[in-house]
């Protein structure tokens, strides 16, 4: 048994830490004083291309399609770094969830058409799953392709304006739709944080037989990979928030001494360490099991449910340690915090994942 990353995994993570420190410094997140409050982070095309050149976009993609045959565990370690650096954008949606969906269920022709572009970052795919309930409930999906046409509305679709391809979850499968197809109306949503979410209405969008993936297995795989990646984002962001709060506690002097010398602050920081460390260990266990092909459903659910609660508790406590300055728009803490809120709700909230855990521990349904 060894809980620590391999040398190669450590190299991947430390390379990412250094690259993002240079190309996505904290100032990118920190809004200048007086700047208008932003709604949705601008897409950093240069950073996206840089990440793709490092092979990150194709980490999960097989070599034959231009990727590097990495595992979901590798991806999780990388996404922790994206969370740590506070990088917004479609990585989790496109390079993790959508890519996993295609790997799990796409035909050879579909793979050959889409995977090379996803691996090189020239294509961006996003998932359209959630419907009117605003929740991830794959068993309650209603959209269908009727007579070769897709009609209905999908909600809270991430980065839909950047995407080249939409993977639309149906009652019994998935439709692959070009994002610029006629009959799609896109409405941007004004949500907390700087994620870019949209409602998409499909009004008779044509879907051919070759653009279908049947069955629920591929979507389930994507949901699981997305949940893991969002958990990794939570863990990475919580680690960053913890470090920021500890640094503030060490250096902020009140009453002639650093506030971190007071036990009230020290004990809050100790709880934050527990929350971050335990979340990370649960994440790594679930990602490892998934990568080994072992039954990991309850482990993924455990990690997502636990980290969703624990990492948000870290963010709330950090606000308390920073005090009033963290109430300002120009302070980066609320940006991390709002991303964590979005991550905890994405790919299944605690309620959904706890039901999976409830069944796994033997509670009769």
């Amino acid at each position, binding site marked *: 048994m060894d809980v620590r990353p391999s040398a190669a995994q450590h190299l991947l993570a430390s390379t990412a830490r250094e690259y993002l420190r240079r190309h996505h410094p904290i100032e990118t997140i920190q809004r200048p004083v007086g700047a208008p409050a932003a709604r949705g982070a601008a897409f950093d095309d240069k950073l996206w291309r840089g990440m793709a050149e490092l092979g990150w976009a194709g980490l999960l993609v097989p070599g034959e399609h231009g990727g590097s045959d990495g595992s979901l565990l590798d991806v999780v370690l990388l996404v922790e770094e994206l969370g740590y650096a506070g990088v917004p954008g479609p990585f989790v949606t496109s390079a993790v969830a959508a890519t996993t969906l295609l790997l799990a269920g796409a035909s050879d022709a579909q793979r050959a058409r889409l995977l090379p572009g996803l691996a090189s970052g020239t294509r961006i795919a996003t998932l359209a799953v959630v419907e009117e309930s605003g929740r991830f409930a794959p068993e309650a999906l209603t959209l269908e392709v009727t007579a070769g046409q897709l009609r209905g509305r999908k909600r809270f679709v991430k980065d839909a304006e950047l995407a080249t391809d939409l993977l639309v979850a149906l009652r019994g499968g998935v439709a692959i739709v070009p994002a610029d197809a006629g009959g799609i109306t896109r409405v941007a949503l004004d949500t907390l944080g700087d994620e870019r979410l949209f409602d998409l209405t499909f009004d008779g969008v044509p879907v051919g037989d070759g653009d279908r993936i049947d069955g629920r297995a591929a979507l389930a795989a994507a949901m699981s990979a997305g949940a893991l990646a969002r958990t990794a984002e939570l863990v990475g962001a919580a680690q960053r928030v913890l470090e920021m709060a500890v640094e503030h506690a060490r250096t902020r002097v009140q009453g002639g001494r650093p506030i971190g010398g007071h036990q009230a*602050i020290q004990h809050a920081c*100790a709880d934050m360490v527990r929350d971050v460390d335990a979340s990370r260990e649960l994440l790594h266990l679930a990602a*490892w099991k998934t990568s080994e092909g072992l039954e990991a459903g309850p482990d993924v659910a455990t990690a997502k449910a636990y980290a969703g*609660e624990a990492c948000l508790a870290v963010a709330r406590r950090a606000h308390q340690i920073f005090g009033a300055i963290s109430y300002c728009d120009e302070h980066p803490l609320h940006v991390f915090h709002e991303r964590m809120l979005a991550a905890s709700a994405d790919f299944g909230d605690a309620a959904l994942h706890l039901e999976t855990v409830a069944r796994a521990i*033997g509670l009769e349904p």
Partner: protein
Amino acid sequence: MDFALTAEEQAFAEEVRAFLRAHPPAGFPHDGMDAGYGSGANSRAFLKALAARGWLAMCWPAEHGGQGRPMFWKLVLMEELARAGAPFGPLAGAWQTADAIIEYGSERLRREVLPAIGRGEATFWQGYSEPEAGSDLLALKTEARRDGEHYVIRGHKIWSSHAGIATYGLVFARTSREARRSQGFSMFVVPNGTAGMDIRPITSLTGEVYHYQVFLDDVRVPAELRLGPEGQGFVALLNGLDSDRFWGRFYKAPALERMLRRLVEHANATHVNGAPLARDPVVRRRLAAMATEIAALRALFTRAACLMRDGAPITYETAVAKICADETGQRFAKLGLELLGLHGLLRPGSADAPLDGELSQAYLTSLGHTIAGGTAEVLRTTVATRGLGLPAGKA
């Protein structure tokens, strides 16, 4: 990363399970109460049965009568024992004393005490706390005065678990008044029954005896029974605390998993207002959330185990794991009692006590866990100062 047990470890786990099937834990008599840490009651008979399999000495080097097994074998054994609810109360303490004797014990300790541990005959109480030295251990007053080839120990120890039924005390005493505050302490292995030692039981809040206080009235101890160099006792103790926290709580997660399974069975089988308790959405949600907390606890101990095995530096990892173990245990017992309603108040031995009254007992005993072995408050300060580098000093 690799979260799987090796083939050898899995085979050993199976061997332990076969042993437990052949020797059901319920059949062994208890000598001392189960304090709820997850290691069950104190049972000399069970310890000897483990010894008869060679499992007490299995990780010692061959020259000390062991088989040189890796540390993880101990974890496999304790995991299986805790999962089965076996009474192995004194095991971790015996192992830790054995490790200290192997590392820096005298010839006599290695010749007399070590083999007795291997046979399951020697168990130990810790003589650390005193009435005026709790969280501030260095305030202790017990003194060991050198007298030729002996030490003469005088003082008053308290909160020593199972001292009255153990065979040796590990007595921490001042051996020099001149030395700096943290210097001048030594550890002694003092046989129970030595003249001048008066061990008196303290009745605990469950009505049973767990702790004792020990009066040491000029107890003469051969110098060969000093454990480690004179004056270095506190350094050894501090180094030992990291592993103390680990070995004293490692079995909490499997023990809580065992009780959770019983609680789930209860929820499935119990009807409230005509429907199984298990279908109550609030019950489902809370039990599932508790399962994630127990999984988090297990994960923190798995990490600490890997660090300890590899000799990697540990600054806060076992402290944070211990805090998590004790507080998760308290929340678990509270949740469990709540689900049982008024039946939860029934003590063990009551006719229709759900889960044999295990939860009411767990609730009471868990109150001591966040105090014993370093309070949750002292340990949070340790995490913050030693782990995060926040300023140490008086608040």
